[in-house]
């Protein structure tokens, strides 16, 4: 089976890869581009561990084919920090201990960042609904929500 050539932009850098049409964007990020931040928790759209944004839209990278990334702008968890300077969300996740095993964390950071870009002043209910597709088996969610709400408050003050 012939492979397809894809050119796309990931975290601002133009990248290229060859993929089988059955491979997902998640497979391509992890196995071809060595961006292993996005995780495969389920592979069926249920857990959100593979969350990335595509042209600014939050999606599950396990539910998108690698070939569909052609010409798109992809953002992954690797692009959230500015070099060694952590994003405010990342700092708050550490401060609040909003992670234990950390498998869900990359997806939750990407999803939470996308929420705050769309809605800088979410209610707790809005934040919980927005993140309902990101499963965490460790924290019980409360610390995650508190970290997100506090980041939102801090970013509002800063702007």
């Amino acid at each position, binding site marked *: 089976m012939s492979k397809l050539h894809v050119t796309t932009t990931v975290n601002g850098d133009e990248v290229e890869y060859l993929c089988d049409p059955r491979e997902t964007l998640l497979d391509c990020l992890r196995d071809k581009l060595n961006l292993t931040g996005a995780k495969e928790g389920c592979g069926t759209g249920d857990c959100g561990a593979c969350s990335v944004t595509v042209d600014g839209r*939050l999606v599950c990278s396990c539910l*998108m084919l690698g070939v569909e990334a052609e010409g798109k702008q992809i953002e992954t968890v690797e692009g959230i920090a500015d070099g060694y300077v952590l994003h405010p969300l990342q700092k708050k996740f550490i401060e609040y201990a909003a992670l234990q095993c950390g498998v869900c964390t990359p997806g939750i950071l990407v999803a939470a960042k996308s929420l705050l870009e769309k809605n800088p002043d979410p209610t707790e209910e809005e934040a919980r609904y927005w993140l309902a*597709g990101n499963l965490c088996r460790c924290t019980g969610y409360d610390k995650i929500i508190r970290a997100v709400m506090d980041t939102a408050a801090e970013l509002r003050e800063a702007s």
Partner: protein
Amino acid sequence: MDYHSPASFAEASALAQNATGITRFLAGGTDVLVQLRSELVTPDTLIDIKKINGVHDITRNSDGSWTLGVAATGAEMSEHPELGHDWPGVVEAMDLIGSTQVQGRATLTGNLCNGSPAADSVPAMVAAGVTVTVTGPEGARDVAVENIPTGPGKTSLAKGEVISSVNIPARGENGGDAYLRFIPRTEMDIAVVGVGVNLRLDGDIITEARVSLGAVAPTVLLVEEAARAIIGTTLDDAALDALTAAASAACNPIDDKRGTIAFRTEVAGVLAKRTAKIAYARAKGEQA
């Protein structure tokens, strides 16, 4: 698996017409990829329709009707400033599908053509009188949404046919629609029963109505008896009782761990009543 991304529906139709083996169209992929990954369906030919011009457009036509491109996502529908004002039931039904991430990809057409009897947007579309334009080797035709599914996972589309747009009627005066579903949890679950109601009033009297049930039969149902139970009434208690009875009588559900036959049948009646009340309040302008 061969992947194609045609530039027109005529080309998509020709690709499907000439393909052998299993063919799937790729809209948001939230059903196609799950089936691919779990090795339920591995298409031989996959035709991505998202590179066709205009497939993300949501357009209000001069007569007040709406034309939605077949790749318009749930998120794009919810974000549209006017669509949800005209058709809150259709937009809410679509919005119930999956998570934020799934909303970023899932489409009405994919939900319809996947053929699940529990597909959330389908009862809302049937109640609203939505049609789809089907492009095939012989040209295009419009088909009512209720005539697309023929059984679980099956549609009436012939080989080489592809849906090229979704057409929602003009809202018109004094109308309202609503969709409710019952699920065992508050989010991220499959409907045990879904009900769509769309109606129009003259004063307090219902002059037109369409009632549709999901997840209680092998396909989504348009229940004319249930509509007749409320047409000509003010949705008083007697009308609501008749509606409840007609909705329950139309059920032919499965029995599974998520809902027994008796439970689904009873819930269909209760939800029909609640949904009709919301549609009525919307038609009166008393509720958004």
